[in-house]
């Protein structure tokens, strides 16, 4: 049975899902390290991959604790600590991390030592830090946090699974505050190996990503951490996550598959596509996989919708949707869509919500709905 036939028989249960984003911290290829919303300056890079602009880690974490750590651990620890600081030092009731590739660099290092050195190991550290849950575990150690701690590592669902769990924790009243993060690093070996599959474009300006009509994309990396809270603030306006949905299509999704899933999801949260002010697409410049986004833009959503994109700023990686969620939240709180992320040129309209739709290889699809209103 194909999905189109199956969908009418699925009536997803309606359940209340809501959490407020009370703090966030992002390390990315853009100037996102400071807390002040969307960066003033856009980083233009001419390359086939975007690397993070990293902070001085020693000013955020004690250098003695940092000393042995691989880069991805430093990125994760720093963004988690900054997130905690910005949340007023709250100790979260759960720490949940999503990472598609885990601590890839250390895994590669230890693997090559095993293979090339004929198992003559000279350092055990890469093995210790090669486990996918190293980031979440080190954050717990740093914060002396004994609460729920878990890591999801499932390609384009990694961050979404973490987010789903976070929302469930709040719904089950197991947590009032959950810190959730999405993190991935890009390594040289990863780029090399995936070049055989034609994943990457020839070096170009990231700002021209969608203009170059060719196969391939640019790789990226980043670490984005959020404090999600159940408690509403003082009744002032803020951003909340009010919907999340994923669907898996092993042999690529058709337009009908995708639109039925979006309709199902919106119906489940009591909305219609006409209620969506802005849609943020995971366009990555790859002609073949981008086609579905453009079709949705043209045929599915209303003409009056703002369409946005983000992967030219952060590159393509499994947890790029975490960057997207951060971007959507700063757009909503800043009450303004920066020109550099606009796909269509419309004046900023009602900015009361943003629907993020992303897919990886047309296989892992995710929808995240953010609402701006009284929290």
């Amino acid at each position, binding site marked *: 049975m194909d999905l189109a036939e199956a969908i009418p028989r699925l009536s997803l249960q309606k359940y209340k899902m809501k959490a407020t984003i009370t703090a966030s911290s992002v390390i990315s290829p853009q100037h996102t390290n400071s807390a002040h919303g969307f960066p003033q300056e856009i980083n233009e890079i001419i390359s086939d991959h975007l690397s993070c602009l990293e902070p001085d880690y020693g000013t955020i974490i004690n*250098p*003695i604790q940092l000393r*042995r750590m691989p880069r991805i651990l430093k990125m994760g620890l720093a963004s988690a600590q900054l997130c905690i600081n910005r949340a007023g030092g709250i100790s979260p009731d759960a720490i949940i991390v999503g990472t598609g590739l885990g601590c890839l660099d250390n895994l590669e290092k230890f693997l090559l030592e095993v293979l090339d050195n004929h198992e*003559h*190991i*000279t350092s*055990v550290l890469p093995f210790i830090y090669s486990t996918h849950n190293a980031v979440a575990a080190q954050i717990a150690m740093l914060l002396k946090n004994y609460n729920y701690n878990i890591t999801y590592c499932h390609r384009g669902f990694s961050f979404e699974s973490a987010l789903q769990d976070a929302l469930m924790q709040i719904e089950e009243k197991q947590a009032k505050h959950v810190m959730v993060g999405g993190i991935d690093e890009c390594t040289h070996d990863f780029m090399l190996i995936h070049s055989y599959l034609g994943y990457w474009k020839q070096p170009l300006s990231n700002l021209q990503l969608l203009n170059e009509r060719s196969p391939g994309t640019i790789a990226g990396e980043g670490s984005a951490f959020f404090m999600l809270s159940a408690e509403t603030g003082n009744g002032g306006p803020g951003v909340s996550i009010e919907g999340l949905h994923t669907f898996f299509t092993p042999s690529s999704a058709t337009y009908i598959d995708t639109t039925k899933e979006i309709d199902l999801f919106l119906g489940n949260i009591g909305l219609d596509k006409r209620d969506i002010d802005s849609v943020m697409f995971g366009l990555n410049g790859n002609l073949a996989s981008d086609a579905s986004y453009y079709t949705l833009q043209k045929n599915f959503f209303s003409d009056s919708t703002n369409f946005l994109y983000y992967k030219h700023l952060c590159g393509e990686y499994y947890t790029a949707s975490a960057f997207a969620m951060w971007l959507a939240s700063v757009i909503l709180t800043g009450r303004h869509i920066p020109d550099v992320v606009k796909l269509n040129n419309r004046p900023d309209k009602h900015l009361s919500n943003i629907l993020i739709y992303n897919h990886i290889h047309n296989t892992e699809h995710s929808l995240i709905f953010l609402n701006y209103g009284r929290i």
Partner: protein
Amino acid sequence: MYFMEELIKQLKQDIIEALSLEDVVANDFDANTPLFVEGLGLDSIDALELILLMERKYGVKIEDPKERRNVLRNVRAMAECITNHRNINK
């Protein structure tokens, strides 16, 4: 003595590299500074790295936990252990 001092200097460098201590070690980390608990305050993971260093680079395998604690107490003790091992194996 000259060889001992050269070995100590090399060992210090090896330790700083193996344990990524470049940014955290002051100039007064010397041959007698305690490595564990006090002094540098290294931990059990560092200990494993140092054991591997002794084995892989200097050919000295120390299996007994008591002996390990003794040998790894400071750089001088490590250097003496290496020197003794070399003398025995001449």
